[in-house]
């Protein structure tokens, strides 16, 4: 009961932009969840001619193979959002945990982790991903883990830099003097203070991973056709622009709307935590 009223209070204090963002995210998640019920046609069902204009039977027209665009976008929500979200979560969990721990512990652990990260960052991410994926194969779980770990190096850098600044605070000294374990210091003293910046990064990372997976798909090592994925749909249909057909803009628009929504919610969160701090 008490928890519920807290959430309602939180919602009431939120600005319009955050509410709009939240509504769109929830809508997107609902679409992803109920995709088979909502979609008028199957995910990879060829139903009509190539690149039909929107209207009539096909609200958003058809794609380069004559599949229904609306159905593809609905199924794409399921694949794109889920994969990008899980990937970002893993990247953050691994990167932030290791980054904070490295900063708090210091010494050889910090050196070891930082150098490993340096090595990974020395290669262009796309080339490294292509290399690893072509060795390991291109199933969705492998894709998620590989992209997540590659992105975790960026999160590691950020988390470590943030924690370095926080670890010199006297309240961390106080916890060390008390004899607290590193895990407690990371979790209870450092993390709450690093969280705002990490969450802002989460909003951005999510978008990058979205686009990164679509580049991999385009190169044939990401999500495999005929599975619908917003990023690959933009690539597959990009040729249509030459003929003045707007088909590739629909999945691109879906990506844009979702990322903007996420960032609106993140902004509000940042604003709120800045208030607590001041």
């Amino acid at each position, binding site marked *: 009961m008490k928890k519920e009223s807290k959430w309602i209070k939180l919602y009431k204090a939120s600005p319009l932009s955050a509410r709009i963002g939240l509504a769109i995210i929830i809508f997107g998640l609902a679409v992803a969840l109920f995709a088979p019920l909502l979609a008028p046609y199957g995910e990879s069902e060829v139903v009509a001619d190539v690149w039909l204009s929107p209207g009539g039977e096909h609200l958003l027209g058809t794609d380069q193979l004559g599949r229904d665009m609306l159905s593809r976008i609905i199924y794409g929500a399921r694949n794109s959002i889920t994969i990008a979200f899980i990937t970002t979560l893993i990247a953050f969990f691994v990167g932030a945990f290791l980054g904070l721990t490295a900063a708090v512990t210091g010494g050889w652990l910090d050196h070891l982790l930082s150098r490993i990260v340096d090595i990974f960052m020395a290669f262009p991410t796309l080339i490294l991903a292509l290399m690893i994926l072509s060795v390991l194969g291109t199933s969705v779980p492998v894709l998620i883990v590989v992209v997540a770990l590659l992105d975790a190096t960026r999160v590691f850098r950020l988390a470590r830099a943030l924690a370095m600044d926080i670890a010199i*605070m*006297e*309240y961390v*000294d*106080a916890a*060390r*003097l*008390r*004899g*607290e374990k590193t895990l407690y210091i990371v979790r*209870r*003293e450092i993390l*709450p*203070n690093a969280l705002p910046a990490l969450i802002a990064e989460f909003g951005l990372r999510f978008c990058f991973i979205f686009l990164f997976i679509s580049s991999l798909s385009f190169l044939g090592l990401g999500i495999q056709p005929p599975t619908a994925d917003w990023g690959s749909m933009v690539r597959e249909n990009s040729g249509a622009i030459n003929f003045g057909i707007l088909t590739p803009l629909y999945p691109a628009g879906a990506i844009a709307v979702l990322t903007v929504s996420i960032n609106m919610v993140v902004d509000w969160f940042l604003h709120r935590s800045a208030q*607590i*701090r*001041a």
Partner: protein
Amino acid sequence: MTEPTIKTIPPERLLTITGLEIQGKQDGKWRKVVKGVDLHLNRGEVLGLIGESGAGKSTIGLAAMGYAREGCRLSAGTINYLGKELRNAPESELESIRGYKIAYVAQSAAASFNPSHKLVTQFAETPLAHKMMTFHEAKTKAEDIYGRLFLPDPAGIGFRYPHQVSGGQLQRAMVAMAMACDPDIIIFDEPTTALDVTTQIEVLTAIKEVVKKSNCAAIYITHDLAVVAQLSHRIMVLRHGLCVEEGDARSMLDAPREKYTADLLAVRRQVKEVSPPKAEEPLLKVENITAGYNNGPAVLHNVGFEVLRGRTVAVVGESGSGKTSVARVITGFLPQSEGMVYFDGIEMSPYLKHRDKDRLRKWQMIFQMPDVAVNPRHKVKDIIGRPIRFYYNPGRKETARRVSELLDMIELNDTYLDRYPSELSGGEKQRVCIARALAAQPELIICDEVTSALDQLVAEEILKLLQRLQDELNMSYLFITHDLATVRAIADDVVVMYQGRVVEHGPRDEVFTPPHHEYTQLLLSSVPKMDPDWLDQVLAERRRLSA
């Protein structure tokens, strides 16, 4: 020495401020921070503005230049400088006055100088911008002013970078910068607050001389009544954006009209009754400690002293004397290269991680900056409750009861339980830190400059609280401080440190009564007294000794 009292011509009125109101924006609403203040300033006069933080003294000081900080506005009143109205004056007109006719000296010279330019280049910036003189003229002038401010090597010091001179010298270089264009008014905003007492006296002397000789007027902003007493002709006491009392410096110090002023005067006069030490095994014994940072040169040389049960030992010295490093060795943050720390007769490992939990419980630490000593994302009940859970883990109910009890001990109440540190004042935060230390039920508390970030009245309350807790709980304190008034108020024994060495130690009254070590003498004589003639007397005395 008496001030010349005969005035043949009426003094020239430089600045008149009437009904000044300044608003600051908070949570999207405008709130008054200065609520109608009148002041005036004549040529040749120094006006002291004093008050605690939040009293609006710096805001008024800046307003005298027609300037409002970001998020503030000068909402009402007049600021009249030689017939010109500065409030809402166009920026171009203000620019021709600021730094040129009215100059400003900020609190932290280190933060105000550009680290990548030489001092004299920065000195010449304003005169060149106002096309008053050529660089060569400015350089000659700088030499002259540096000399008048008693800076060593006036001809050469301008060619150094800010990091190549000491803090006190840098502060004086900034005073020199303010004087570059022969301003009518100089506003000093806490220019000595960040300095050691021994350095403060140099800067005060320099400011006093220069203001007297250059026939300008000054507004001197500080929270320290003893400092303002040395320089000001008139003093204005501010509180919550209102003027509490204004008047001639001497008569105000002798007979304050308002209770608040009397309270301000009474601080720093608290003296602890010292009982003679009992002969017993010391609780903490520091023996021949030598230590340095990262294999660098040693910052501590053969430091040794003892802390007895139920007594307070003050470690005093200026910044760089190694007093904080001593605390870091004792706490295990800075492992010593030689020597040993004994607690209750048992050797302590130099490394924090090798010390066991129960030993760690027995000494706690209170830090200098309450703002960063509590996690801004923890509630008060979690800050105080954590050590209880960590060391005793008595269950949820018992922990809550203990937290309430501790809040009671530090004179706060249960309404604070769910607050975040940002909802507390500096003094309240420091109280929470004290409660956190007490929660472990320690035998020794190390206090690292615990009052130096607080206003004087608040600091005094904290010292009283610490004293009361010691009387009740029979703990020992190791008090690290640079402030001798604090030492008088709380210490039984004193350790005087200088350049990483203990120069004198023993019972307080023994150390504080002559004969002293040379450095102790310098330290003691540098503490400003509430007497307007103190500075002149000290200088006369020092001149006599050196002659």
